[in-house]
């Protein structure tokens, strides 16, 4: 067997081992549990919340998007998932069907900029901020013109 053929075979074996060993080690040491829980990113959580609100309504908000002790800052500060669900539904209705909208995320904070719907304050800016930890919304701020 020529040296070139031998080197080629050794190279192929090295590639197979090179991919196989780390792949095997990775799959064999994958961990589960709360410390290594796979969670959605903050942006994905807020997008999921908005989709659930639009498709299923207010009750869907309580279905895995918010922490039980979520704090909602609107005209007054309230604590609890039910208060957040009510606020999120009301805000979604006031800003729906408007094309001017942007969403950005920075670590645990997600900011949604949009504009008011409705006849009186249509187009007025609305800012909503969500703080997300561990795949759940834990705090919510909503700034918009009074109606």
């Amino acid at each position, binding site marked *: 067997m020529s040296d070139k053929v031998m080197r080629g075979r050794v*190279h192929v074996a*090295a*590639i197979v*081992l*090179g*991919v*196989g*060993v*780390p*792949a095997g080690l*990775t*799959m064999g*040491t*994958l*961990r589960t549990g709360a*410390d*290594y*829980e*796979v*969670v959605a*990113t*903050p*942006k*994905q959580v807020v997008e999921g919340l908005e989709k659930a609100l639009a498709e299923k309504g207010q009750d869907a908000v309580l279905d895995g998007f918010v922490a039980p002790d979520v704090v909602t800052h609107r005209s007054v500060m309230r604590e609890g998932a039910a208060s957040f669900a009510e606020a999120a539904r009301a805000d979604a209705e006031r800003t729906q069907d408007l094309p001017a909208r942007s969403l950005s*995320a*920075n*670590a*645990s904070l997600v900011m949604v900029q949009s504009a008011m719907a409705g006849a009186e304050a249509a187009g007025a800016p609305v800012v909503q901020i969500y703080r997300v*930890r*561990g795949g759940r919304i834990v705090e919510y701020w909503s700034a918009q013109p009074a109606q």
Partner: protein
Amino acid sequence: MPSTSEMPAGAAAERPAGARARGWAALFYAAQFFFGGWFLFHGLNHWLQFFVQPSGSGQGMRDLISVLIDSGMFDVVKAIEVAAGVLLLVNRFVPLAIAVSFPITIVISFMNFTMGDNFGIVTGIISILLNITMAVGYLDRYLPMLVYDAEDPGIGGLQRLFREGLK
């Protein structure tokens, strides 16, 4: 096969040196192929989902990975991992692949050292040691870069690249 006593003095001295060189080459190749396979597997996992991308073993790491994913930077990092992994495995442009891998390895190790658990810290140590081992194996290729006074820049390198091409 001639015995050692029948060999010329120079040949007898070369044999252990050659065996030692092969041993070093085997060590450096082991690091290169393990690291290349590891980068390729984890890079491809971003798109092929062999396993679910872990979100990190601490809140800080989760926040950082979330921002990388949402900003699209994670796609770039994983594409570089795949490219570097392939180059290391096919044994082409290896010094370049090692240099490109270094910043990613440093970030991974830094995250594991500062925000990870014990498993993450061990992973960080291994990854940085592998990258250093590979770089030492090709250190002679980097030596021209390690000059105190590089003198004036020019287009000589560009001309040489077009004249001689890539080797």
